[in-house]
């Protein structure tokens, strides 16, 4: 069990380091920007044309912007450690409430898109891996390279043009009904498929040529049952590890996809906050993404240990 504890601890360390770096970066940016911060906050709250030096002065006192930088940095990190992310400069609502609302939408989209991508990639990848160099293998390879060369927003624009503007089957953007989810989820799935097909295919090829597969065949198992009982579990190991790596692609994927489809997820929130320089929201959204990244890496580590007892034994030794 100590191995698992050590893995969990190292991933928590990764999450904390990411959080500290993000918070410091945001703090540095906020204070390095030219101009008076309190004026900018005031402009964001009451509108550009109604800012007076009194409002700016009031905000300077309220937000503690007149204290020395090091004190402000300490307070910034202290608030963060207590889980207090402050209020959005734009809407005035607590950042945590905003994050909870938008994260829900992103999780829905991410989960559906991710599942859909494996519904597409698993059969194709396994089929291609069964006959390396065959027609199916070459066709899926071409498909994967093509999809990998298409940024997510191009896939999305293509799908909108085809299904929303030409065939008029689905709505182009928004989030009111389930039909609104179809195009964004497919866009996300297609950009994920590009990378998971080759990984699945290679894993299957590798597992097929392994010695235990030859042994299973010699033992008298049919090719299909040898693959089902011995091949797939071994092939799953690199695929699972890859799932965490793939989360990095999901992140830039969903920021772009949510903006394109006007879908109210975390990515859209982040882009809007960046355009408006709404620092508490930027940092909050960044932290959620960073923590999610560490969490998925942790889950992949644990799943790999569960699938491959050899590694657990190795790590213990």
């Amino acid at each position: 069990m100590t191995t698992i504890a050590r893995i969990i601890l190292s991933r928590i360390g990764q999450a904390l380091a990411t959080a500290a770096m993000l918070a410091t970066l945001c703090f540095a940016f906020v204070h390095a920007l030219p101009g008076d911060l309190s004026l900018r906050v005031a402009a964001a709250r009451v509108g550009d044309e109604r800012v007076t030096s009194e409002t700016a002065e009031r905000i300077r006192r309220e937000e503690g912007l007149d204290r020395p930088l090091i004190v402000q940095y300490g307070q910034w990190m202290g608030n963060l450690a207590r889980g207090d992310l402050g209020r959005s400069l734009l809407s005035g609502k607590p950042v945590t409430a905003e994050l909870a609302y938008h994260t829900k939408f992103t999780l829905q989209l991410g989960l559906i898109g991710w599942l859909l991508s494996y519904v597409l990639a698993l059969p194709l990848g396994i089929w291609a891996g069964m006959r390396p160099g065959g027609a199916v293998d070459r066709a899926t390879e071409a498909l994967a390279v093509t999809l990998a060369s298409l940024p997510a927003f191009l896939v999305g624009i293509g799908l909108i043009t085809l299904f929303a503007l030409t065939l008029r089957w689905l709505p182009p953007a928004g989030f009111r009904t389930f039909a609104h989810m179809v195009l964004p989820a497919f866009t996300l799935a297609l950009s994920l498929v590009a990378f998971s097909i080759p990984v699945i295919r290679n894993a299957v090829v590798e597992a097929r040529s392994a010695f235990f597969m030859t042994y299973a065949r010699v033992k008298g198992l049919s090719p299909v049952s040898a693959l089902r009982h011995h091949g797939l579990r071994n092939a799953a190991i690199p695929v699972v590890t890859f799932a965490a790596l793939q989360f990095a692609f999901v992140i830039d994927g969903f920021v772009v996809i949510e903006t394109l489809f006007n879908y109210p997820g975390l990515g859209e929130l982040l882009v809007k906050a960046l355009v408006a320089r709404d620092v508490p929201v930027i940092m909050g959204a960044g932290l959620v993404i960073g923590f999610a990244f560490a969490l998925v890496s942790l889950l992949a580590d644990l799943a790999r240990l569960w699938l491959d007892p050899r590694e657990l034994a190795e790590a213990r030794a």
Partner: protein
Amino acid sequence: MTMLLEARPTRSRLPGAIWPLAALAAFAASGPFLAPYDPDAQDLLRVMEAPSWHHLLGTDHVGRDVLSRVLAGAPQSLGLAALCVALAASIGVMLGLSAANGGRFTRAAIMRLADLMLAFPGLLLAMLFAGFLGGGIWPMLIGLKLALWPQYARMAEAVATGVLREGHVEAARLAGFPERVILLRHVLPAVLRAILPLATFGVGQAIMSISALGFLGLGLKPPTPEWGATINELLPFLSEGFVQMAAPCLLIFVSVLLLTLAGRALATQTTGLNHD
């Protein structure tokens, strides 16, 4: 495969992957000069016109010639991506070599920093820089560079550590060559050979990141004719101007595809292994 592994990197076979790269570079360099019109000249009487002999790819929502705009955008979209990867790769190689050659503390410091940066989602970093420091070339370049250098550092460190243990390096060291010469003459070439496919592939990825930032409105801002920014501008008019929208989209796709294929070809050549 064994034959390729034993053979020294074959120079004679390099052009296969070089041609598409040269074509892209030539396109990026000559694009603005080929533009038939001024890319910023508006003509409000001819907005969203379909393709014609005067405007081969039609006009956009303020009557600018789309062909001229995508041609003028080539140096930004392609050139910046190449510059960005070149800077990231040189920083990565420098740090990777220092790590491989340095003491235990240097190595640990550099490699832990690379791990930390790798754990940080890449585009997020570029978005933070571009978003806070305002749209422009430098914030975007710095952000992307910071996100990209760790993979080059890791690869350089891995290759250099291997090469430093080899016999010919040992021989050079015994012959009394200074460390600097050994690094430059024996280690650097091997590292660059390993980095080249990764960097070629990386330029394609950088094109996608730069156009994604432009599309989000966080990269180069309109009226800069960068392809992602152009797509962002044309998006509201998608139903009226399919050709206009297809032009920058296809250019991004073809450029990234060429770079991906070239990267794969280079990887197959330099290592003799199939790069998937």
